[in-house]
């Protein structure tokens, strides 16, 4: 199905169009970007609709030769997990474009082009099943985002963008080593040099080797997710990125880490992953607590949200390494919910900065009367972020903790303790920004959220609510494809021996 390629090509074409439009008029790129996104959504809807009923876990395929001499192909396959994350990408790109990027005045054509190019790269990551192709997209999606941050970011953008790029690229090189190592071991065993995901999954690996290769993947994804000792790029980057960049980073880019952990670390190296699980679980719990703890003491609102991301994504790590479908489903729901809630929080933080010209919570307070709509949405998403049952985040966290409890109650208890801390920082943020008395002699008249913002954020809220109350469609999609009925003939995640 060529439509899969179109998922990557369409945003690229849109990017080119937006850039060209930007040369014509500074007002032109925005509608072009919106139109591209609408088309992309329509395309994805078509792909979703065109999935043959009962056609197995892999919903769509595409393949074409790329570098035949090295066995590299343009192979793309989409399963439910990919589909969910693709939808998340498309859905979250709407707030980026509709809310954040319209007010860009500095070469808007380039801005929108880069935004769309990032989306193209992310789309590619979610569908590529040739490991080299995956790596290509993995590295590709960083570049436009780097430029976005460097040019349109806030005061300390250079350093932040540097850190972001170096961390992700550096860890990506480790993943490259692992990809190549796996391919060569496979070549030794079969005589065929290939980077095909399904072929490589059948490689027999000694325990030591499997662990080494898995760690290469793990580090790359752990940086992206992020996992705690490797998270240091994230607060800076999220803080300094322009609003659209922050939304895209938190909402979508981090999810590529979780996706990679599920798709590659756990499924390609099930045994090694199980042996590694204690460490990963400990790291996950550490991330939950450490992120929440540091989130609490931040004065910069975007930094606070960034650390809260670290905390939330610790749950994803727990879920992925809990070695059960329950945990993986929880991790996916958590990723989607975190994308929606944190993305919205970044929109709100960006709007605050636009209005107040500061992100410092010490200089905020008492904004509710001045900006009732903005404050109310801020409160709502903060509550979602602290994991209130009935909203999507809770479903994810609960499933993850349930899966974790089965293998390690102490880790699950630590994770549950993270819920207390998340309440602490979320409510502290709300309290410091919106409640209390205003500083000095009150706020001047500030423009509140208009219908556009309320509609988009309301839609995000509705999705979170739907995810919280009826997550079954996402659970059904995210779960079976890669884990139970995958094309791989091994008992993934069950710890069973490989055939």
């Amino acid at each position, binding site marked *: 199905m060529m439509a899969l390629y179109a998922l990557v090509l369409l945003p690229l074409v849109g990017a080119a169009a937006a850039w060209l439009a930007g040369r014509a008029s500074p007002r032109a790129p925005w509608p072009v970007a919106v139109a591209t996104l609408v088309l992309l959504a329509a395309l994805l809807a078509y792909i979703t609709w065109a999935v043959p009923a009962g056609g197995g876990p892999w919903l769509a395929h595409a393949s074409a*030769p*790329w*570098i*035949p*001499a*090295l066995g590299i192909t343009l192979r793309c396959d989409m399963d439910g997990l990919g589909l969910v994350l693709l939808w998340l990408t498309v859905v979250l790109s709407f707030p980026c474009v509709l809310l954040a990027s319209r007010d860009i005045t500095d070469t808007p054509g380039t801005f929108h082009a880069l935004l769309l190019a990032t989306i193209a790269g992310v789309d590619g990551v979610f569908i590529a099943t040739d490991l*080299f192709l995956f*790596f*290509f997209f993995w*590295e*590709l999606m*960083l*570049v436009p985002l*780097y*430029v976005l941050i*460097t*040019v349109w970011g806030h005061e300390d953008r*250079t350093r932040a*963008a*540097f850190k972001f*790029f*170096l961390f992700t*690229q*550096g860890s990506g*090189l*480790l993943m*490259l*080593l692992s990809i*190549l*190592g796996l*391919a*060569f*071991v496979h070549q*030794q065993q079969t005589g065929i040099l290939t980077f095909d995901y399904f072929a490589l999954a059948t490689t027999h690996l*000694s325990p030591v*080797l499997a662990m080494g290769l898995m760690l290469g993947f793990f580090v790359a994804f752990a940086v992206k997710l992020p996992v705690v000792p490797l998270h240091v790029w994230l607060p800076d980057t999220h803080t300094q990125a322009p609003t659209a960049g922050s939304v895209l980073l938190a909402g979508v880019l981090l999810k590529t880490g979780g996706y990679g952990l599920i798709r590659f670390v756990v499924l390609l190296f099930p045994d090694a992953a199980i042996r590694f699980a204690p460490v990963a679980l400990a790291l996950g719990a550490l991330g939950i607590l450490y992120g929440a703890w540091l989130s609490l003491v931040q004065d910069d609102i975007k930094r606070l949200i960034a650390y809260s991301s670290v905390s939330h994504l610790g749950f994803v790590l727990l879920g992925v390494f809990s070695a059960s479908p329950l945990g993986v489903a929880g991790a996916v729901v958590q990723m989607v919910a975190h994308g929606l809630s944190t993305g919205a929080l970044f929109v709100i933080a960006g709007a605050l900065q636009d209005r107040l010209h500061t992100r410092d919570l010490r200089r905020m307070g008492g904004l509710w009367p001045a900006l009732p709509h903005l404050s109310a949405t801020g409160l709502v998403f903060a509550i979602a972020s602290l994991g209130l049952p009935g909203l999507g985040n809770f479903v994810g966290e609960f499933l993850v903790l349930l899966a974790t409890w089965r293998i390690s109650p102490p880790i699950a208890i630590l994770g549950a303790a993270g819920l207390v801390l998340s309440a602490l920082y979320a409510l502290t943020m709300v309290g410091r920004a919106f409640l209390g008395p205003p500083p000095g002699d009150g706020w001047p008249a500030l423009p509140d959220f208009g219908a556009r913002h309320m509609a988009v954020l309301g839609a995000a809220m509705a999705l979170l609510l739907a995810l919280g109350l009826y997550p079954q469609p996402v659970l059904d999609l995210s779960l079976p494809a890669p884990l139970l009925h995958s094309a791989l003939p091994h008992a993934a995640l069950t710890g069973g021996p490989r055939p």
Partner: protein
Amino acid sequence: MTATLIAALPDVPAPVLVLAAGILVLLLAIACRRPGRESGTVAGAIIAAATLGLAFAGLWSPAPPHAADMARLFAADAWFAYGAGLILLSSGGILAMSWRQMAGERADEAHLLLLLGTLGAVVVAGSANAIAFFVGLETLSLSLLGLIAYRPRLPDAVEAAMKYLVLAGTSSAILLFGLALAYAETGDLRFTVPLAANPAEPALAMAATLLVLTGLFFKLSAAPFHLWLADVLDGAPTPVAAFIAVVSKIALFVALARYFAMTDLTGTAWPAQDLAIVAVLSMVGGNLLAFGQTKLKRLLAGSSIAHIGYLLVALLSAGPLGAGSAAFYLAAYAAATLGAFAALGAAPDQPDLAAWRGMFHRRPAVALALSIMLASLAGIPPAVGFFAKAYIVAAGMSAHRMLLLAALIVSSIIGLCYYLNVARVMMTPAPDTAAPAGAAASGTTVLLTALALATVLLGLFPGPLVQRTTALFRSAGPGGATLAASHDILYASTPPPRQRLLR
């Protein structure tokens, strides 16, 4: 007459002949030129371009009949054809770059020197014999000296030439002494690692090899023999700097690979160990050096040093991928480095990085092109450098060069810093006082566009080139004498040892 000449020189590949003939023609043209008239420039450039084009076409001429192995001067094999092709294309690019850059005064002589240098490079790339190699190398060096000092108005050009003169002379002498020792030990002048006559006493052969390597590494500017490069590139006119960084390095690397064609470079024994040390020093040192620079040319010098290190990793990764990746990387390196220098040439008189602030606003096309080139050098997709580096890493993986790869990764990350820094500088808004950058010469524009396109397209579709580079070392059938030679030249004769790590 040509026919008899070819008959008399059965061993000489066609491009060498074409270049020599072209040089003669250009000399004649210069001699006939009436003094004081500028019209010679166009004619000279046309002659130079035609010569390069014809030489390139000559790559497809049937291989000359093979002389006896011992007496062979040239190895006109596929590896040579590939290297010479890259050299000729790069020279063509530099010709385009220098169209206006070197002109103004006596451009014809510049073109002549360019052709001479190209001839030297092609000879170096193809030489199978110490004599041919030495002659080619000196032709290259001497014409480079002329080119570096060509524009006396550049204040630092002469100093650069002086440094090059002294250091290149020293290194040539060292190399020559090594060749002499090798000859003394083995009694044949083949350009290859000498085998000790008495295996129990390898000292003389080893010393010979090391002295030759010193000379080669100097020209390649591998650390710790790299110190001259930054100064010389800094002082030389931009097209000449490009010539040094691209053409001369390609030629020398091709020769280096040929020099080690019969040697087992797989293990950690000598000389692989020496090469590995040099590779690590070059990668880390080059990148660190570039990291601290504020002048673009010096930065590119550091980058060039580091890339030699990467190429050495490919060379050390014996096996089918190693040779192919080295060949591919050469092309990627040539395109990107040439492009970077072309971008520098497109905005002349801005050697300092600071002067490039706001380039994305002032000269977006040039800034974009330079960014693409730097991305390629840094190994960022979609530029071709991404795949090239991945290819080298693949080769290293397949040959279990884990330590080298670790150094490669660390140094690549350092490298990212300064490449990104350049991009960032170009993205930061310029102060209003920044001088408006002049328009680029048309030749540079064309070259830059072509290289940018090539870099991106090759990055997106590296398949054909990979096919080609792999075929260089694979298509040897029992009947193809020429290619068979190349086959054992770069295919390490011993298979890689079974993988310790993987067992």
